[in-house]
């Protein structure tokens, strides 16, 4: 899923909050075979998890995440103590590590991790000082989605920043990290520098973003919102998550994706174990992590999500069109991934983003 508020609209988020509240926040821990997993509400469906419980006798209670930011704030406020396994965004691992909220992982207890695609296995965002704190879990891309019936050409990032052919028909996500990252990609700032840009580079981005604002119909805040904008023709092209592409194609609207050559923003959710989990619960947590990276779960996710796991254990079991659908038919796509991360000067980024919007 994407960073921040993921592929969820406000209503789903609200529903999840209600569901989460209905669950006991600190489930009874009498049995050592019961652990708590903080996750998105579409990842732990009963038929995904029941085989695990049947096989290991470990019962998995779930609490649902509404946004990455909400989960982080909850953990900072002590909520981590109630959780045994959780699902942060890879982009934000640095703040969990810096806050000492996660524990180093013992990869010997996660045999499935050995089957990870290299781009995930080697990703530095899961490590600090060479120590592995989290493991990529499943992933996807966020890119340009457009109404092929209403646009004459395949757009790239420049459509948001120059020319006025589509002025007033574009949308950008209202999220500082992605918004500024895309401006940096468009400006050709090297990917290694994007999240540690200096003042001059930030000023350049700001200029581009102010130009972008004049071309936008609106900033979108939830994917249901954006889907609605596409469907009603208010917006013909947006930096988007994939659901509008799937949903509207299904409804007969000619939608298309564009993967810009300057780089494709990718997202990856990871699995991590809070600091403080130990003993039997820790062993159970490791078993769950291993299961979630394994083929039985992966097969359900490939069709259900549909999402690709970080491991290649199910790739060969999928027909080509399903591989295509979750972007694993040609693994070369992974070479153009751009991984967002917490910018070094995050609060300045957010401030700048608001300055752009207020300009």
């Amino acid at each position, binding site marked *: 899923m994407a960073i921040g508020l993921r592929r969820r609209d406000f209503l789903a988020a609200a529903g999840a909050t209600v569901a989460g509240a209905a669950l006991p926040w600190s489930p009874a821990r009498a049995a050592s075979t019961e652990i708590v997993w903080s996750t998105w509400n579409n990842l732990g469906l009963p038929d995904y998890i029941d085989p695990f419980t049947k096989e290991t006798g470990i019962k998995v209670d779930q609490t649902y995440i509404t946004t990455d930011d909400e989960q982080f704030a909850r953990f900072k406020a002590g909520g981590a103590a109630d959780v045994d396994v959780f699902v942060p965004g890879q982009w934000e691992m640095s703040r969990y590590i*810096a806050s000492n909220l996660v524990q180093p992982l013992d990869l010997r207890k996660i045999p499935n991790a050995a089957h990870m695609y290299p781009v995930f296995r080697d990703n530095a965002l899961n490590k600090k000082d060479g120590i592995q704190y989290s493991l990529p879990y499943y992933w996807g891309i966020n890119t340009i989605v457009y109404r092929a019936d209403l646009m004459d050409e395949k757009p790239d990032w420049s459509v948001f920043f120059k020319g006025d052919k589509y002025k007033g028909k574009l949308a950008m996500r209202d999220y500082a990290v992605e918004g500024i990252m895309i401006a940096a990609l468009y400006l050709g700032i090297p990917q290694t520098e994007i999240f540690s840009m200096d003042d001059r580079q930030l000023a350049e981005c700001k200029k581009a973003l102010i130009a972008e*604002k004049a071309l936008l*119909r*609106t900033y979108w805040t939830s994917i249901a919102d954006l889907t*609605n904008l596409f469907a*009603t023709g*208010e917006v013909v092209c947006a930096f988007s998550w994939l659901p509008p592409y799937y949903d509207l194609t299904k409804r007969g609207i000619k939608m298309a994706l564009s993967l810009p050559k300057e780089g494709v923003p990718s997202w990856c959710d990871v699995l991590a174990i809070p600091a403080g989990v130990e003993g039997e619960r820790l062993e159970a947590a490791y078993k769950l992590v291993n299961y979630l990276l394994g083929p039985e779960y992966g097969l359900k996710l490939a069709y259900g999500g549909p999402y690709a796991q970080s491991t290649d254990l199910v790739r060969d079991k999928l027909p080509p069109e399903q591989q295509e659908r979750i972007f694993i038919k040609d693994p070369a796509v992974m070479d153009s991934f751009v991984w967002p991360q917490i910018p070094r000067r995050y609060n300045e980024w957010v401030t700048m983003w*608001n*300055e752009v919007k207020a300009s």
Partner: protein
Amino acid sequence: MDGGRTFLAATVGPVLVALIVLCLAPLGVLLVVSFFRVDFVSIVPDPSLHNYAQVLSSGSYRYLIAKALMSGATIAAITAVIAYPVAFFIAKRIREVKAALLTALLIPLYTGDLVRIFAWRLILGREGVLNSFLIWTGAIDRPIETLLFSPTATTIVLVYNYLPFMVLGLWLSFETLDDHLFEAAADLGAGRTTILLRLVLPLTAPGLVAGALMVFALVVGDFITPQLIGGASGVTVISAIADLFGAAFDWPLGSAIAWTLLVAMVGVVAAVVVILGRTPWGSAAFGRG
């Protein structure tokens, strides 16, 4: 009539108690945090006025705060103008269907924010009901783009959202207004305009002020509507604060903006009370002037 002060006391009193209990404690925390600073993911208790300096020296934050106050005042004024005759009509001209009318008036409040907002998008959109209708009638030949995702659109939807609060406040004032006063005024030589200006307006001022304060505060706090209806210009100071708290984990700066906004709001309200208090209208609203 004991109206003025009693009415204000009755409406504001319990609200005040609830505010103190529910809001003051968190506000206190915010105030303390606003003097600290953030270092990546830690809040460092290293008191300084740095955050306030940043808020006040930033054109964007000053602009956003001013925009919020202006928006609150504008919507309060527009709703007042619309609600005034509506409230009068319901209170003084309707007998049998009064309850039904009041309930109908509250319907917007029963539906969720998002339902209302998406309904308005259907009406105001490029291919929405209004544009389609205008094109059909031949009044325009291309859709009016600025009906949606513009400050105008935000104004329309905010007025729609908060009109009930204004009507309810005014309706109560009109209900308690003694019709004999109008006869007495006419008897003493007052025409319709004089009665409106010198009697009805001052005597409904408590409702007007209560309604305006409610609408003002609610509009300043509403960031969803501008965000989803206002288009690229839909940023609000509240959403900026939310970004700082949620995304950037910069509680100190967010708190400082929040407190600056709060002080500015209290300033506006105090100014209104002082200015109004010097007029006969205000003396009706706030007791002895």
